[in-house]
């Protein structure tokens, strides 16, 4: 039919623009469009609205495959390790998760294992005060692994249900700091072989394709059990996480939607996929 060919490419290009601007990345976007191209070319999908709905459904379906229960009922207690690059929201997220678990009746404890950054221990300490959650701290510059070790001992003593370990921000390219993280994990494991039961990488939703590198390196060092996306109350869509999940198969555990300790939600593939196209 006259002009039909041009229509197909235009529809696909319009959607390509949306997905790339949502930070899905070129390759991930290509893969998604390749899946729907046959439908467009055979006119089963005739306009961008229909294509958006098809893709939204595809994305939601795919992300729903990576849902698995959290290990937060372990005995004697569960250990959650929070990691990520600088400034993404680890400390705030630690507080938010503590609040969430406490509301379900779990006795929580924080370990302030960022012994490096100015004001870091104090920052988590204030969250602990606000939430009435005890915070284990070490001395300035103390080996974070030894603070983690002390926290494990304390959690055992105090009959804690969940120990949340906040760590210092570090770039995935800083070899010594990544090894420090590995050491923290090993020290925890030595004390309790199944721990840490949950190892979260916190990602800032505004991050571009570098998030893929972050995820790969942190996963390689720690064997992550989940991702947390923060700052989704901003304008960024966090599209990069879709490709990360495709590649590493990691569940997205929570999303941060603000700076208050209540600003945490479970990840919902439906609203995430919908927001990508808004």
């Amino acid at each position: 039919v006259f002009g039909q060919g041009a229509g197909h490419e235009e529809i696909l290009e319009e959607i390509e623009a949306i997905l790339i601007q949502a930070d899905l990345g070129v390759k991930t976007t290509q893969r998604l469009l390749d899946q729907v191209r046959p439908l467009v070319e055979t006119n089963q999908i005739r306009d961008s609205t229909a294509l958006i709905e098809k893709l939204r459904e595809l994305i939601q379906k795919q992300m729903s495959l990576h849902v698995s229960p959290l290990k937060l009922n372990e005995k004697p207690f569960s250990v959650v390790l929070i990691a990520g690059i600088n400034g993404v929201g680890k400390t705030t997220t630690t507080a938010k998760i503590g609040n969430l678990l406490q509301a379900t009746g779990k006795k929580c404890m924080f370990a302030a294992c960022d012994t490096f950054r100015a004001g870091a221990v104090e920052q988590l300490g204030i969250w602990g005060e606000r939430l009435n959650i005890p915070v284990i701290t070490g001395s300035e510059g103390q080996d974070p692994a030894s603070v983690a070790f002390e926290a494990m001992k304390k959690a055992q003593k105090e009959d804690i249900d969940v120990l949340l370990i906040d760590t210092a921000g570090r770039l995935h390219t800083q070899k010594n700091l990544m090894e420090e993280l590995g050491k923290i994990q090993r020290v925890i494991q030595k004390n309790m072989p199944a721990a840490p039961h949950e190892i979260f990488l916190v990602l800032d939703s505004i991050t571009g394709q570098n998030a893929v590198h972050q995820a790969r390196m942190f996963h390689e060092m720690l064997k992550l059990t989940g991702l947390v996306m923060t700052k989704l109350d901003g304008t960024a869509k966090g599209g990069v996480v879709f490709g990360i999940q495709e590649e590493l198969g990691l569940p997205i555990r929570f999303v941060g939607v603000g700076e208050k300790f209540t600003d945490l939600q479970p990840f919902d593939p439906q609203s995430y996929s919908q927001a990508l196209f808004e």
Partner: protein
Amino acid sequence: GLSEKLQTAVSKMSGQSSLTEENIKDALRDVRLALLEADVNFLLVKEVVEQIRQKAVGVALEKGVQPAQKLFSLVHEQLVELLGGEQPTPFQLSSGRQHKILMVGLQGSGKTTTAGKLARYFKDLKPTLVAADIYRPAAISQLATVAKQAGADFYQAGQKDPVEIAREGLAKAKESNSRLVILDTAGRLQIDEDLMNELIRVKAAFEPDHILMVLDSMTGQEAIKVAQAFDEKLNITGVILSKADGDARGGAALSVSKVTKKPILFLGIGEKLDGLELFSAQRVASRILG
């Protein structure tokens, strides 16, 4: 990186006497891909590739210069130009008067740390760091420690209105003969009307000579909207890209330069206060191209 990719894409150019529409088509696709993978804004990529295409078509290939090399250097030149040019005048502050710097940006971008880096960099001006982030837990304590590490004076007034803190900080700096006052503010979303209005009020009270937006080097497609909003509301005077010591390609630099037309002054290259280097368009362009 891109230069290797171009070798393959333009190998069919060999033996030709100039770059043509036809023989650079594949190469331009590679350029587009490289820029998108580097997080350069999607619409800006379209514009940049078109600019390059227009510059490249008809360019004669000098003897001994590979077509791929020629195209790559055209691309590189174009990026350097978009980033403010090869020899931007390095940011300087004269010692003869007082200077006021207002730090602004999104949450976690590196404002507090960068404020300390600037204080250390301009040590000779006897800088004063003023704590106007009244929201983040331990923000004041963080800046106090940073000030100590930078050898700078420090002013805080607890949770007072940031406008008051700015005025009081200026008064303190005046009486201690400090010639550089750096005001650290809370991180905020560019869409947060109340907090953006707070910043507008702080600006009016503080009357800064420099309004520096700190932006994370690994910011994705949204960099352009963020920079535009901060610039429209505040008329920023410059940008500092933080966490440039990672392996992010840093395409946000291009987006920010293009949309604000304000200079990128420094790159943050580490967590310690000596982790600050003058912006180099050449180096950032090379990195974007990968």
